[in-house]
């Protein structure tokens, strides 16, 4: 991990975003869709931790707008969520890098759960929400997936000399 500004990060970043977008939208049966991991948030957390000087609040916000368009949500809903995730990550990344993977996973769960609650509140303001606590399940699944995700993306980044 390097904290300096990088030049050849953009294409790996973009391909990661596109893959995450595809996974976010891929049709799943209902019982699996309830537990669909937040791929995009995981990818963004990784990149903010990896290159905090390149990927920040505004980048994540723009990615969120893209996700809003693709999911057909109100414009700004996911954007705000990802911007907050990026902010939390930027304030915590130096600590997160020192953590072991289990601690990182817990941080990821906290960040995703917190932002999920926030976007849930907004969704409740402007539309409708389910009345069960299932909406926190994706955060949990994402946290469980974090270590493998982290390893995979880091290896790819080393291979691509990012």
């Amino acid at each position: 991990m390097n904290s300096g500004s990088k030049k050849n990060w953009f294409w790996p970043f973009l391909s990661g975003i596109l893959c995450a977008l595809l996974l976010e939208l891929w049709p799943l049966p209902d019982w699996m869709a309830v537990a669909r991991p937040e791929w995009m948030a995981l990818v963004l957390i990784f990149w903010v931790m990896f290159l905090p000087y390149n990927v920040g609040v505004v980048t994540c916000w723009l990615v969120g707008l893209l996700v809003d368009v693709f999911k057909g949500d109100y414009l700004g809903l996911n954007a705000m969520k990802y911007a907050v995730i990026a902010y939390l990550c930027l304030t915590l990344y130096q600590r997160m890098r020192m953590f072991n993977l289990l601690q990182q996973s817990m941080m990821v769960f906290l960040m995703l759960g917190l932002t999920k609650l926030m976007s849930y509140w907004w969704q409740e303001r402007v539309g409708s929400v389910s009345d069960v606590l299932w909406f926190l399940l994706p955060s949990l699944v994402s946290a469980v997936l974090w270590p493998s995700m982290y390893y995979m993306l880091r290896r790819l980044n080393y291979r691509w000399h990012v």
Partner: protein
Amino acid sequence: MAGMHPMKSIFSSGSSILLRLFIVAVLSGGLILVDKYTDWLDPVKRILGVTTVPFYHLMDIPYETAEVMDDMLTSRSDLIELNSKLRSENIILKKNMQRMAALTAENIRLRETLGGSQRVDSEHLLAEVVAVDPDPFVHRTVIDVGLNDGVKEGWPVIDAKGLVGQVVEAGYQYSRVLLITDSTHAVPVEVNRNGTRAIAVGTGNLDQLKLIYVADTADVEEGDLLLTSGLGGRFPAGYPVARVTSVYHDPGRPYALVKALPVAELDRSRQWLVLKSDSIDYQSLSSDVSEEAEDE
């Protein structure tokens, strides 16, 4: 270059990050509210929506291949069986159609004698479902017709069995359909047996609708077919919506609890019809009637 002086940037970036977060958070909040209460953002969304087209094609690949494989691997005996089944079904449908023509004519004559307005058959567009909303609590799908095909927001969507939902967002090549079972959707219905009116609201559950404001004494029974009543002007009258599955009278509640099962195959069918809603010209129909009234 921030990267060249990591120590300096650690201390200087803190407040600017917070400032950025504040700006984008206010922006997003504003966008959400503008998007919710106005249609100013619709053109922007439409243009951005063009980028989604290749994704839907990509996500459709597994289904397309499965369909192609299915077509290639169907056995001859299966085809013969299917053919004979379709043929007998066709005969039955044709028989019904014969009576339909006579009934329609009779209906029009009766309505003319009564001086009532005529019901018009609406035109339709064939649409295929290409994507389902990734959020399991939101019942919305994407269909492969859009503004380029003339689709407009608010047009009703049906399948072979009954009402599916309505178009809520029309892009250039794709549009989004809100299903009748979404918890934000409501459709005015009437009981086919006796014309009792009610409103069928989605529950967020694909196999359940509930009727609201049904008086405890209202004549609604289990097994009743609910049709669109045409009130409200969004859905043309007479399309099947759901069948009542349970009626529960709770003395402690002001209204009866009525649940119904949608007749359309919301989670199975892929071929839907979008009804061209403005081919039903409510305005001119009602003005015809008033002119007739003036003539008399």
